[in-house]
């Protein structure tokens, strides 16, 4: 009998474009290292869902993203030493994996007189002059960059807030306007702060250009998502987690747009020719929320063994649905466009949430909608000990899917960075059993005359 080998490193990826997407990760890192040589300012930014990064870039700052760097370090199996450094620094292992990886890396940077260590994965993160953090999503994000500032000789930290009102409150008269006004106000303050820090004025023409490009790229990325509704699925999560890099981190870069045209063409060709990403698609699953970056090959294993295609995943990484035209009608201030764009990310599913009587819209109702749109057979919940926001809704979503749509879920514990808490054998075993559960629910949906 054959010995089962788990692919513990990189995933094979099914799209050629997905194999090429690593270029953008490298581009960000090398551009920052070049900027450092040229004496241009570098910022480290969290994913702010376009709230802060476009502004900083328009001001001439080169940005790198520690969250992306964490995923990269985990994927190339270089995160462990950084996690151990963070452990030794006294940070608990329940703290965000991205934060611990980043703190570990920053400690090595600080210990090396703020020169990037020669052996840093991917060339390393160049020393920043600013840390842009975001209050959107979680509490760790407030404190993590504050902690970093201490290793970096007091580099300033700027935190951008994202009002996240509950579903009911969202529909209160005036709520949206007040939230938008709040965001706009803080963006203006951010611009003022950057002008002082960098000693130059905001180039609003440049910002507008970047914004226009961003909207184009996001629309194209969304259109790729729409193509993915096809059966068999032309693209799977293993592909998405690579191709997402340019739209999430570099949407203003024309190269990202060109790249998405290639992605779109490749996916469309597959759709037109009924070619599935995996040759034996038998089950269509959704994945929530943050993936085990160190073990993406696991998804290749379950595709090969059970015919499981992960057809849609990770709400937080997806491009927004295009904003309704009236949303931007008469809006001329690029800062207001940014405010609306970011706010849309967190509220675009509120109508869906009302329709399904489910909350919150993001993380929860979105998966109900996706289950129908993508004809899902199952839901893979990946709770992370180290990330509350990407975990607290999972069981709730699993139950909602089972009750409302007869789509079952399976829970596989793990971590984004820390491979010590992911047990691939156990996870594989669970998937093997879960296949039967999906068969059972498929029968229930058939009896209930549901659409899939």
């Amino acid at each position, binding site marked *: 009998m054959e010995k*089962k080998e788990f692919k513990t490193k990189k995933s094979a990826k099914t799209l050629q474009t997905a194999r090429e997407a690593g270029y953008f990760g490298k581009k960000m890192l090398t551009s920052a290292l070049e900027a450092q040589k040229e004496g241009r300012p570098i910022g480290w930014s969290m994913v702010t869902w376009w709230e802060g990064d476009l502004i900083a870039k328009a001001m001439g700052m080169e940005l790198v993203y520690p969250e992306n760097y964490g995923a990269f370090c985990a994927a190339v199996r270089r995160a462990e030493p950084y996690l151990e450094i963070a452990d030794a620094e006294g940070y608990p292992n329940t703290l965000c994996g991205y934060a611990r990886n980043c703190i570990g890396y920053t400690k090595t940077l600080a210990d090396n007189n703020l020169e990037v260590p020669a052996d840093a994965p991917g060339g390393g993160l160049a020393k920043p002059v600013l840390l842009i953090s975001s209050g959107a999503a979680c509490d760790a994000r407030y404190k993590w960059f504050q902690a970093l500032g201490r290793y970096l000789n007091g580099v300033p930290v700027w935190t951008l807030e994202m009002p996240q009102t509950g579903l009911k409150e969202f529909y209160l008269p005036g709520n949206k306007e007040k939230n938008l006004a709040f965001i706009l106000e803080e963006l203006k303050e951010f611009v003022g702060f950057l002008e002082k820090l960098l000693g130059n004025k905001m180039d609003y023409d440049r910002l507008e250009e970047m914004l226009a490009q961003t909207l184009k790229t996001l629309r194209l990325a969304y259109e790729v998502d729409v193509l993915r509704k096809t059966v068999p699925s032309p693209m799977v999560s293993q592909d998405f987690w690579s191709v997402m890099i340019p739209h999430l981190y570099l949407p203003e870069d024309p190269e990202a747009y060109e790249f998405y045209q290639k992605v779109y063409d490749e996916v469309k060709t597959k759709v037109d020719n009924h070619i599935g990403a995996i040759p034996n698609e038998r089950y269509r699953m959704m994945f929530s929320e943050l993936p085990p970056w160190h073990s993406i090959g696991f998804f290749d294993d379950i595709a090969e063994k059970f015919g499981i295609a992960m057809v849609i995943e990770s709400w937080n990484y997806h491009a927004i649905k295009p904003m309704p035209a009236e949303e931007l009608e008469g809006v001329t201030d690029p800062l207001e466009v940014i405010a609306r764009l970011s706010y849309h990310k967190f509220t675009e599913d509120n109508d869906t949430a009302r329709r399904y009587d489910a909350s919150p819209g993001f993380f929860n109702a979105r998966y109900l909608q996706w289950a129908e749109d993508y004809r899902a057979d199952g839901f893979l919940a990946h709770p992370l000990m180290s990330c509350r926001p990407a975990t607290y809704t999972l069981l709730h979503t699993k139950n909602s899917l089972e009750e409302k749509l007869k789509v079952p879920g399976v829970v596989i514990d793990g971590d984004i960075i820390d491979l010590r808490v992911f*047990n691939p054998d156990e996870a594989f*075993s669970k998937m*093997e*059993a879960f296949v039967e559960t999906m068969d059972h629910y498929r029968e229930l949906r058939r009896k209930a005359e549901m659409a899939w």
Partner: protein
Amino acid sequence: MFFAGLDIGSTITKVVIKNEKKICATVIKPTGAEHRRLAHKVMEDALSKAGVPFEDVDYIIATGYGRINVPFADRQVTEITCHMRGVNWLFPAVKTIIDIGGQDSKGIKVENGKLVNFIMNDKCAAGTGRFLEIIAGVLGVKLEEIGELSLKSTRPSDISNMCTVFAEQEALLRLSEGTPVEDILAGIHKANASRIHSMVKKIKIEPEVAITGGGAKNRGLCKALEEKVGFPVVVPPEPLITGALGAALIAGEQIAKIDKEELQERQKKRRLEAVTFFDDESTKAR
């Protein structure tokens, strides 16, 4: 026709040999690193108990933690499925199975013999046999006696910690305060039952409920769980073999799907040899 199920768990290996009508033999043996490797010996015992030569067994399914690379198994099936099938055969009305193993515990939902939902605790000793083993050691009581002893308690002590390490400290503290051992054990069983219950509750507990695994042999734990669940639970006559039984049942179904020639071909290839998953050096008895 004969078919066999082999369940190599973390602490115990079980074999069930069946024919179309009845269970011909069951064998239960402890699993250590060495024993796990030598699962073929347990199979040999079972075969001789059943009076069936190895060559006459038509299909063998391995399940459990050590199911990988059993050279004499035709197929591996997860323990979740096998437990479900075994219990469903014994108690067709059971809808919720609580399996308490040596290293993990599971909740399994079943409907008309189909696996509807499941949940597992495989990360933490709390809520598993390991938890009770540690506490038994701390209190100096034999593991197989702690259940009965706990039933003698009139005032179960409060054990507030679910974490094995802290619960161990708490048990020691109660001991130093002069609390009778049976009261501490009753408290420990309550805490363990509470932990298991809150996990299984996530998949909605519906009657009938069956308890299986090593934990089901502990009457104190079953009683504490029954109290938590709120209605009576059933326990199979031999709660350790449900996984192997389920494996044997699935093996029986597999035979029907395979033609005779292929079956003979498979039988020829099978070797009743040591499990090769564990490397020889690290698992040799010293």
